[in-house]
């Protein structure tokens, strides 16, 4: 039987890669915290992957990576997430990006929903700076899920949205404004 034409485009489920010896590097946050991480986990971040590749190309010893726009607490969360997903195929995250219904695996759901909303926003921002598609997908979906069934007042409180200056009840807004 001939293979289906579009089978190559479909994201394949992640297959465990042959286990290579872990290469640990130090990562420094913007507030000076130094954490340790497996390079395979760091490769989930396109930004860090490019930096690591630069070091490798020049045959420089990679001792410490500096992440200037993420604080220590958030960086620890990012690294925890990356460590869990270091075996994942990045193509899956890329394919999920365009989907409306993103399925959040149970570990990620637990990891993200236990965070206070502020930390979750920090994590998404860090994922944005470090360009970690999977974490952005799951983080944004968690934010969208947290809004489920909430009224306007509840959303304002949850998301820290300030009250609008003009009172809607007395507004004369037009359809085109």
């Amino acid at each position, binding site marked *: 039987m001939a293979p289906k034409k579009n089978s190559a485009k479909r994201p394949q489920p992640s297959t465990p890669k042959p286990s290579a010896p872990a290469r640990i590097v130090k990562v420094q946050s913007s507030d000076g915290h130094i954490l340790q991480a497996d390079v395979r986990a760091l490769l989930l971040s396109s930004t860090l992957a490019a930096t690591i590749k630069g070091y490798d190309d020049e045959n420089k010893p990679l001792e410490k990576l500096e992440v200037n726009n993420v604080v220590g607490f958030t960086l620890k969360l990012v690294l925890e997430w990356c460590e869990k997903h270091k075996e994942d195929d990045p193509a899956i995250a890329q394919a999920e990006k365009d989907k409306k219904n993103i399925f959040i695996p149970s570990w990620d759901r637990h990891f993200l929903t236990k965070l206070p*909303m502020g930390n979750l926003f920090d994590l*998404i921002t860090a994922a944005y700076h470090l360009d970690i598609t999977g974490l952005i997908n799951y983080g944004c979906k968690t934010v969208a899920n947290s809004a*489920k*069934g909430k009224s306007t007042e509840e959303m304002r409180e949850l*998301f*820290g*949205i300030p009250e609008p200056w003009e009172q809607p009840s007395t507004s004369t807004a037009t*359809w085109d404004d």
Partner: protein
Amino acid sequence: MWLNHLLLVSSPIDGHHNFHIDGVEMKHHPFDPFGSQELPQKMRNEKRKKEIHRREQVNRSIDQIMPIRLLSLPAKDLQYCVNLMNVGDLIAFSLCSKQTKNLVKSSNLEEIRTTARFGENDCIEFEILACQRRFNREIHKQITFYLHKNQWMRVDRGNGKEQWKFTRSYCIAHLMSILKTSMITYLDLIDLHQIPYLNTVKQIFPKFYALSIGRDCSDELTKMAILKLGPIAEEVEVNKIPVINDISQFLTLNLNFLLFKDEQRPLKLKLSDLLILNVRSIASVNTDITERELNRFLKLWMKGNHSFYCPENIELISNNAFKMDQVFKGIQYETVLEDHSFRLKRGDGKELRIITAGNIMFQFS
């Protein structure tokens, strides 16, 4: 409760008692009428200071927990978060602020259908069926807004009615704005009797695709609604035919579709009515027209070479089935065996297909 914190310090000779309440030193004389007033004032000031201090601490702790707000997320991620919300949540979110409204407008929210139902007591039921990207009947359900004048709106997003503190006019303007449309799909007049109220209807929804006038509306209102609101719509559905002498004023409206759906009161038609029709497609479920009138209409159509006739479809249903031999009397026609219809051909090449099955349908081409 504050008496628990009261500590009597001294009882001086001048009759004033010094005591502390929550750390505030107070003077009180049992026979001094002003002394008793000093107590609540000082207490209030102290309580207010403590309350301000407590709130500051709470705010500080909230800031520590939530150093950034949702709207401070990178623009791309913020829009992505918004795009992942469902329709009901998107609408609630859009009402949070101007920025959230703009975010929702930039999302992939698409209108499928909007329906406004006007009932008794100036009540509007406004239904929205919208989707993101592709419509899925299983996922996308309609959201109903209950809008009364001078009352907060209520909304049903599928989990019972909720009250949102927005007024009717604001809600409608806001919803039309986020759906990026100025026209609603259906305007249903369910149970109206006051003719001046039609101006209010027109003011609230100046553009709509289809108008439906319910059975419970008064005759006079039905007539006025057809004449006043009909020209705005593309399609009109009349569920009760008003008792009027001249129906022709309804038939000259420039509409795509006109449906008379009154099963009790028949639509009385004459040859002249069929000739002045300006509606592209007309249907009547209960029609009173003689076979002789239909026969004359067909003969006139056959003779009218190169003359423009607006209707493309005329479907007339009668309780008494039409006698086709009388309808076709003196007219040359072909029988189409495939669908048992009849075909009339005019000198200029135009054709008229007539389908009969209890009813009669003219299809002009």
